[in-house]
């Protein structure tokens, strides 16, 4: 009866819905609002990769992939609405691209038994898969990012940050607050002084923060920004003539849309990344043939090869690989969310696999296990070349300081387990 009413009420919705045989990957995207500049390329990359798989290979293991897009506007209330409206369609995996929505959905997806992949965002301690059974955050998380940034600065300064001042300009939300604990621990270890400069949503007004940067004269500024906040911060830094090569953004503050508005001034700005940049890979040839030239690109199709487009592509690629792994493990093509979860937990990315996919040297190798849902946390530094209008990777992958991070992750995940009566364990 319950089902009948639903069918009646959402009849039209269901009619437009998928045949049950599809593998459904909902995309909680945002193409409007103050975060759209960053949301669009990611959503395009995510959708285009699945389109490519459908067009070129006939789907994943012969089953078509279906991307259901739902606009969240980076707003948690709309995120909930999107989650509820898509979960009934047989969704296999959620990637909300918002730390706020991730926090919101962690208990919900766990209760509903649908895996969620927060790639390079979300709750860091979800790395501990024995507590967070359904949450994955490979290949890197915020605490890895913070640690990699500090390690890079150490290497720049002869392995000592004693007496240096480092300012953190962050989005005043769960997202921006994530690295503070790690940076504070690392400050104790390496003896630098940490200055915290919160920027409120949406981040268009940052005069006072950068006035403080000008007054305190930190040696380095690290930024945890997103959306319009990024381009405003970079413009403000240019305005106060802050040396750009001493300004490092997290991977979410390193897209073309963030630096281009500041023009020549942004030259030398650095950002973290956990995958390679540019479009010089064999896969992009296929993408052009099967998706772009066929007029099947998502959005305007003008974002191909940008940093966030590549990240969306990478996210979709990891999802598709996990689905393949799940198909092999379960021996069935039409996998369920639970089988998808097992596939994600057994995921192994090797260089050979990446080369076979047409993405050699694109991302690091890693292996997921129940104890480690977060991969190895490798990150690299990219630098913006304003003349050539491109990012250049200037370091190899740097591994984070696990001695500092592991205790923090254990502590935070245990606190969560205790709060929610979860008995940690791997089956």
């Amino acid at each position, binding site marked *: *009866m*319950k089902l009948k*009413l*639903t069918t009646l*009420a*959402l009849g*039209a*919705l269901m009619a*437009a819905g998928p045949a049950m045989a599809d593998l459904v990957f909902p995309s909680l*995207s945002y*193409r*409007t609002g103050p975060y*759209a500049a960053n949301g*669009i390329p990611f959503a395009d990359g995510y959708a285009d990769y699945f389109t490519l798989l459908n067009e070129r290979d006939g789907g994943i293991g012969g089953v078509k992939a279906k991307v259901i*897009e*739902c*606009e969240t*506007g980076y*707003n*948690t*209330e709309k995120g*909930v*609405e999107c989650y*509820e*409206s898509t*979960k*009934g369609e047989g969704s296999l995996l959620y990637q909300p691209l918002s*730390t*706020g929505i991730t*926090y*919101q959905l*962690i*208990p*919900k997806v*766990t*209760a509903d038994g649908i895996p969620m992949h927060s790639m390079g965002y979300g*709750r860091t301690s979800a790395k501990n898969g024995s507590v967070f059974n359904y949450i994955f955050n490979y290949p890197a998380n915020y605490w890895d990012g913070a640690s990699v940034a500090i390690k890079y600065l150490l290497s720049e300064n002869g392995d000592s940050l004693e007496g240096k001042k480092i300012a953190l300009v962050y989005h*005043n*939300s*769960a997202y921006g*607050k*994530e690295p*503070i*604990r790690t940076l504070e621990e690392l400050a104790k270890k390496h003896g630098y002084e940490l200055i915290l400069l*919160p920027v*409120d*949503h949406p981040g268009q007004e940052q005069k006072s923060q950068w006035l403080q940067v000008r007054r305190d004269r930190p040696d380095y500024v690290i930024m945890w920004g997103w959306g319009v906040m990024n381009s405003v911060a970079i413009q403000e830094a240019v305005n106060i003539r802050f040396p750009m090569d001493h300004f490092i953004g997290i991977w979410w503050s390193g897209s073309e849309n963030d630096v281009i508005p500041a023009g020549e001034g942004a030259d030398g700005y650095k950002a973290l990344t956990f995958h390679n940049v540019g479009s010089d890979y064999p896969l992009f040839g296929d993408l052009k043939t099967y998706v772009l030239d066929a007029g099947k690109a998502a*959005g305007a199709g003008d974002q191909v090869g940008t940093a966030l487009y590549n990240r969306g592509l990478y996210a979709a690629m990891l999802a598709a690989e996990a689905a393949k792994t799940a198909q092999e493990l379960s021996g069935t093509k039409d996998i369920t969310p639970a089988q998808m979860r097992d596939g994600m937990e057994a995921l192994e990315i090797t260089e050979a696999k990446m080369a076979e996919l047409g993405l050699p040297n694109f991302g690091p190798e890693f292996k997921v296990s129940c104890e480690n849902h977060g991969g190895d946390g490798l990150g690299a530094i990219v630098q913006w070349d304003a003349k050539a209008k491109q990012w250049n990777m200037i370091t190899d992958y740097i591994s984070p300081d696990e001695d500092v991070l592991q205790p923090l992750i254990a502590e*935070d995940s245990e606190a969560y387990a205790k*709060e*929610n*009566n979860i008995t940690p364990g791997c089956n």
Partner: protein
Amino acid sequence: MIYREAGDFHTSYREDNQTFPIRFDRYRYYAVLAIAFVVIPFFINDYWANALLLPFLIYSIAAIGLNILTGYCGQVSLGTGGFMAVGAYACYKLMTAFPEVSMFIHVILAGGITAGVGMLFGLPSLRIKGFYLAVATLAAQFFLVWLFNRVPWFYNYSASGQISAPERTVFGIAVTGPNTESWATYLFCLIFLVASALIARNLTRGTLGRTWMAIRDMDIAAEIIGVNPLRAKLTAFGISSFFVGVSGALFFAVYLGAVEVGEAFGIQKSFLILFMVIIGGLGSIFGSFAGAAFLVLLPVLLKVVGADMLGWPTDIVAHFQLIIVGAMIVLFLVLEPHGLAQLWRVAKEKLRLWPFPH
């Protein structure tokens, strides 16, 4: 035809003053209540509960709260988001400090705490009016959001600064946390809404409501006929904040489950609820429901029609949503400045005479 008072005789003041004096209206009201309490819980699913009904119920409570202050007492407030945050954080602190206590008590206490805070911020209303009061309540909005962001005690020192609702029960049934049944959360909020509406309706037609309306219509005249402005304004702030606090607590604990103060209770929330009250109808309990329904359900409806049925790109639909909702707000205000409640009243008047309007 059926909607008329012919043959419906009132033989006492009590009967004459009831909320629904027309028999048909009264039965319709009972029918709505019966459907809401007895029928919907059996058919509700997660989507209907979490995407439509819960936000509607919770925003209705907030709109009733603001309507008491702005619609009945004439004090403009832009601090609703901040007061909702007080309710949410009070509820969170209570939930985590006394886990064994029933959620009913937590939500009511959270409303009580918000009432206190609301009265505190209502004090300036004795000296300032109109736009200036709006600015003063705006200060409350920014101050409260800043406070909950700044002081870690409020969010129990969690690393992310977010608060998330642990599982709490009412009579052994979970109403917060991830493992709730949709009928339980729905009924929980519905009980609060019905109680709020009943209390608000009875307050506004009693002595207290009359003093509020006297202050609203002309405060000097009200003072001359013996209305104490201190008492009237502070009770309006207190009671209004109580309802707003209850809605904030439900919004956080039952509906969203995890909240970030700047995003969930920012200035846009204050405006949203003010718009609900204005579009619904100032000084009308029904208007609070109508306004909440209009601003909660219409965007979802547009999304379902545009993105799911017609298959348009999601960004176009999102932009259309803004345009259509915005245009409808302007249109409604131009055609009927007294809101949806007035449209409803006019419709009822017409129905009484139908089919013989002359």
